[in-house]
């Protein structure tokens, strides 16, 4: 690893004519330089390869659904023939009832408050499975704020995020979590500003989540038309919330 500066200069296109000539000639005779350059290129490609990460996420979701389906199958088969028949009849009746209830719930229009509450519950699952592993990578203050948030101490967490944002005004991560605190403190105006700030940034890991919670805030504050247009956008994207967004669109009055 002795060519780091030269390689970066080369990749940044900052070499002058003679440096470039020398670099190219060294590439012909120094296999280690070639390997290092390949590694730098691979790092750049990998960092940009969001489609791979997205595809893995989709596979994980498909596997989760598959596991849930498998569990249902396993629990519906047991015992001898009679028992099996009885189980089948019972299961069919149950399935029909569930199907009926499902159809009813799918197509029944719900109030904005009902939709908001129903969809907010899934947040805690999202949080524990998706965000928590990133703790190790965060600044200590931010980490402390998130821990307070996880413990349900939303006011304290929000104070920490505010303080952090005072020193790091462009930090979308803190702004996103602060938005979530505002949601749980029923301060939807502030939550909307926080999520909009995240979405206005040119890049943030949290944009997908911010647009989802922003839509929920618009639902809660009865800005139904704005929420609908945002949900349409989410449902048309490759977002992990697209199915949920489509479902809500069917239920909104």
């Amino acid at each position, binding site marked *: 690893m002795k060519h780091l500066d030269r390689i970066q200069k080369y990749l940044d296109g900052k070499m002058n004519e003679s440096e470039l000539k020398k670099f190219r000639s060294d590439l012909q005779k120094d296999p280690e330089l070639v390997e*290092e350059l*390949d590694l730098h290129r691979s790092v750049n490609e990998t960092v940009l390869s969001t489609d*791979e990460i997205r595809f893995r996420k989709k596979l994980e979701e*498909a596997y989760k659904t*598959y596991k849930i389906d498998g569990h249902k199958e396993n629990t519906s088969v047991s015992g001898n023939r009679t028992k099996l028949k009885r189980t089948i009849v019972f299961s069919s009746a149950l399935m029909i009832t569930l199907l009926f209830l499902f159809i009813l719930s799918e197509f029944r229009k719900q109030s904005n408050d009902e939709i908001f509450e129903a969809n907010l519950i899934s947040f805690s699952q999202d949080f524990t499975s998706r965000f928590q592993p990133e703790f190790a990578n965060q600044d200590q203050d*931010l980490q402390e704020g998130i821990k307070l948030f996880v413990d349900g101490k939303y006011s304290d967490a929000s104070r920490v995020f505010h303080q952090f944002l005072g020193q790091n005004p462009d930090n979308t991560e803190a702004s996103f979590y602060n938005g979530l605190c505002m949601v749980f403190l029923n301060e939807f105006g502030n939550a909307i500003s926080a999520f909009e700030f995240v979405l206005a940034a040119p*890049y943030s890991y949290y944009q997908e989540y911010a647009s989802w919670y922003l839509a929920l805030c618009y639902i809660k504050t009865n800005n139904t038309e704005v929420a609908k247009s945002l949900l349409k956008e989410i449902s048309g994207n490759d977002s992990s919330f697209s199915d949920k967004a489509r479902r809500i669109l069917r239920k909104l009055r």
Partner: protein
Amino acid sequence: MNKYEIPELIDALKKEDNRVLLDIYRIHFPEARHYIMANSGNVFDAEDIFQDAMLLIYLKIKRNSLQINSGFGSYLGGIIRFLWLKELERKRKYFGKELQLEDSINDHSDLLEDYIRMEKRKLILEHFLELGSDCQKLIHLFVNETPVDRITSLMGFSTDQYTRNRRKVCKERLVRAIWENPRFKELKNEAFRQDTKVPRW
């Protein structure tokens, strides 16, 4: 997978169709799990290997290099066996036994190349995610060719020179960690064994 014609399946995978992904799991995962569990693996190995096999197929589709001459099931099964044998080989549980490839995989060298590429990307991503969130963002913004002054303001740094220095520190930390990882050396050697040319991945 008789439910879909191969071109239809390729198209669906390209579009990352959730319904088709679920069908693939329903139809092919039980067999993969059975194979891996019968060969010194557990269900978690089966999950990982199945996901890697699907990713490998996806990457091949993206590069227009996928050629399936038999059914999708036997093609996927062949890749799963290949990946599992590589994993066993890696875990040193499989010393001395020749790697047997399925007949349905007609592009053996290409598959090994894809495997090496995928493993290296996994390794890079693993190290990238170990960096602090500021370093991750900084590298991402630079790779995305965001202007330095914009990065300085986005990250809340004081000067562009400081931003460049931070990028240098972050990138060096990342590249060095990968370079020194024994798995990276293993993969480099594997690529070298496969092709005496300098590896291009």
